[in-house]
């Protein structure tokens, strides 16, 4: 009884959060059960971790786009930073001390990957404070492209215990024979220790924490200040909200989480290679699609869209060449149905009519008296 009363007294946002997190746990428990009974095909197993990192990416981008209200086309850039830093940390420890427990190595990679990505968020924040709208969109796109291009030419070797860093070219000169290349330009970081068997559990915990922390942030004093800036910057200033501070908070938290997702991404793939497809604007746009399709500002929506759109192209794989075509058509169709007032009206009318028919089946019409 006390619990029910407590439930009733909670903030509506807290109730929603607990329901969401509860739902996530239930889904996770079911999937874990199926996994332990070996009932999931290899294909489905391979979707689990991607679903998790895409949830993190979507929920974190939603913070910038839906909550702060600034369009970012460079989210994959932060992911790239996280992926490289995380993969670097893991690879380094794996090289110098292969016996180091993954329980130390992986958290270290995650934290460092997130922090460095957050620092990049701070750098990107500078123009964000001066620009807005489509100009900001193109600057974030530019940042994303610059970031992966830089990683693409970076070389780091471990030579007798000291790092040798260089850019471009065919390699670092004057390396000794037993130098180990850690980051190898366009070949990236290879043979990064993978997540292994518990991968899904680790990824799930991170996605779960992301959702929890982001929901906490959104429905708090800080979150309200960020939303106030989105809704009306001038009014927000007039009541004493420091625009710079709260914009930067949103951006840095968002970049930090994208970095974490990047670390997961690299450790799931076992490598970090800076390519357009993985970390360029196409990836950024894919993440943005999660957010917009999920309904901007909605954490739950971002999450569901991330999962559906992770699985959909994979699930359509049997259509081979036609799958991306169908994906494109579905995307356009969804946007039209969601966005267009005219089409929405038609869909709603259809839904009403169906509802009425179903109702008619169960409720007997009162007979008219003769």
């Amino acid at each position, binding site marked *: 009884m006390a619990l029910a009363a407590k439930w009733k007294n909670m903030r509506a946002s807290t109730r929603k959060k607990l329901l969401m997190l509860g739902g996530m746990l239930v889904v996770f428990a079911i999937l874990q059960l199926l996994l332990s009974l070996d009932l999931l095909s290899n294909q489905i197993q391979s979707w689990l971790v991607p679903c998790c990192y895409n949830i993190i990416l979507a929920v974190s981008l939603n913070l910038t786009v839906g909550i702060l209200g600034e369009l970012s086309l460079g989210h994959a850039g932060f992911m790239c930073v996280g992926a490289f830093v995380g993969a670097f940390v893991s690879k380094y420890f794996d090289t110098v001390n292969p016996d180091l427990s993954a329980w130390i190595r992986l958290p270290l990679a995650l934290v460092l990957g997130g922090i460095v990505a957050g620092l990049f968020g701070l750098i990107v924040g500078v123009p964000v404070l001066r620009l807005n709208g489509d100009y900001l969109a193109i600057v974030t796109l530019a940042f994303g*492209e610059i970031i992966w291009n830089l990683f693409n030419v970076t070389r780091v070797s471990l030579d007798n215990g000291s790092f040798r860093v260089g850019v471009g070219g065919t390699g670092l000169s004057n390396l000794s024979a037993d130098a180990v290349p850690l980051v190898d330009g366009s070949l990236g970081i290879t043979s990064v220790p993978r997540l292994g068997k518990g991968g899904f559990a680790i990824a799930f915990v991170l996605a779960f924490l992301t959702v929890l922390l982001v929901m906490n942030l959104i429905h708090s004093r800080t979150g309200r200040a960020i939303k106030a800036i989105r809704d009306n910057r001038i009014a927000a200033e007039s009541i004493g909200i420091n625009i710079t501070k709260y914009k930067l908070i949103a951006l840095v938290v968002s970049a930090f989480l994208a970095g974490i997702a990047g670390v997961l991404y690299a450790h799931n793939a076992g490598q970090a290679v800076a390519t357009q497809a993985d970390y360029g604007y196409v990836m950024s746009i894919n993440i943005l699609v999660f957010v917009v399709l999920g309904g901007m500002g909605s954490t739950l929506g971002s999450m569901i869209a991330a999962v559906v759109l992770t699985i959909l192209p994979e699930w359509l794989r049997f259509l081979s060449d036609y799958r*991306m075509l169908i994906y494109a058509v579905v995307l356009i169709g969804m*946007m039209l149905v969601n966005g267009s007032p005219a089409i929405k009206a038609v869909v709603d009318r259809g839904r009403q009519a169906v509802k009425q028919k179903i109702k008619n089946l169960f409720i007997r019409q009162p007979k008219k008296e003769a």
Partner: protein
Amino acid sequence: MNDFLATLINGISLGSMYALIALGYTMVYGIAKMLNFAHGDIIMVGGITTFTVMQYTNMPPWVAVLAAVAVCTVLGVVIEKVAYKPLRGVSSLTVLITAIGVSYLLQNVALLTFGTENKSYSFSFLTALNWQINEHLIIQGSTIVNVVIMLVIMVALLLFVHFTKQGKAMRAVSEDNGAAQLMGINVNATISLTFAIGSALAGIAGFMYIGTYSQIGAYAGTMPGIKAFTAAVFGGIGSIPGAMIGGIALGIIEQFSKSILAQFQLSALADAIVFVILILVLLIKPTGLLGRQIKEKV
């Protein structure tokens, strides 16, 4: 010196193509207030049309260009009607994602019909136009054609926008489409016309693409599209002369950074340099070179 000139000329040539594409972005943005992300892919369609006509028929090049323009114009108008018009007045992000969907759609249709491999083609008449300045310096035929086309179109567009009834309607809609509608301007027709013109220019850009790179493929439109968009923002989005200046500047910057970076075996960073410069320009002048600053009234 000759190297410098050659790089400069290549830059202007590439920049002319960017300028033409940027015009499509800038006009559509000015009038419909949307980023038409699929614009780059319309260039690809124009290129494929040109390629197909040249490869499989005995028609002269100008027929191929006309065919590309016709196909792209129709395609642009149809896309506008089917995908963008129902979303008028909806949040710009929704429209942006739809445009991204259209972009994927065009790419994948091209992949299915045209194949995944890039195909090569070079126009013989362009080689014939090569202009030997001195023993080290040749101005390519494609350069001459690119620059001439760009200049002619730029002048024609400026005349059109300033001196014709439809052009004035366009400017009115871009200022304030509600007021324009009240003045009896058919806003929908004006937006369609803008898409038609922008797409026709993309058709020509498709031809220029083949002229410049001697090949075409399903993803050909992506990078030029992004760069031309950058050029449009650089010059000040919504401004026609801005698109030209932005396009040419971007082309020159790209060529020079490529040739400098090549000395350090860093050619891969050429694109990144373009973006670094874009960021610097926007930080110094947030609305681009010729863009107007609109201040929010308190």
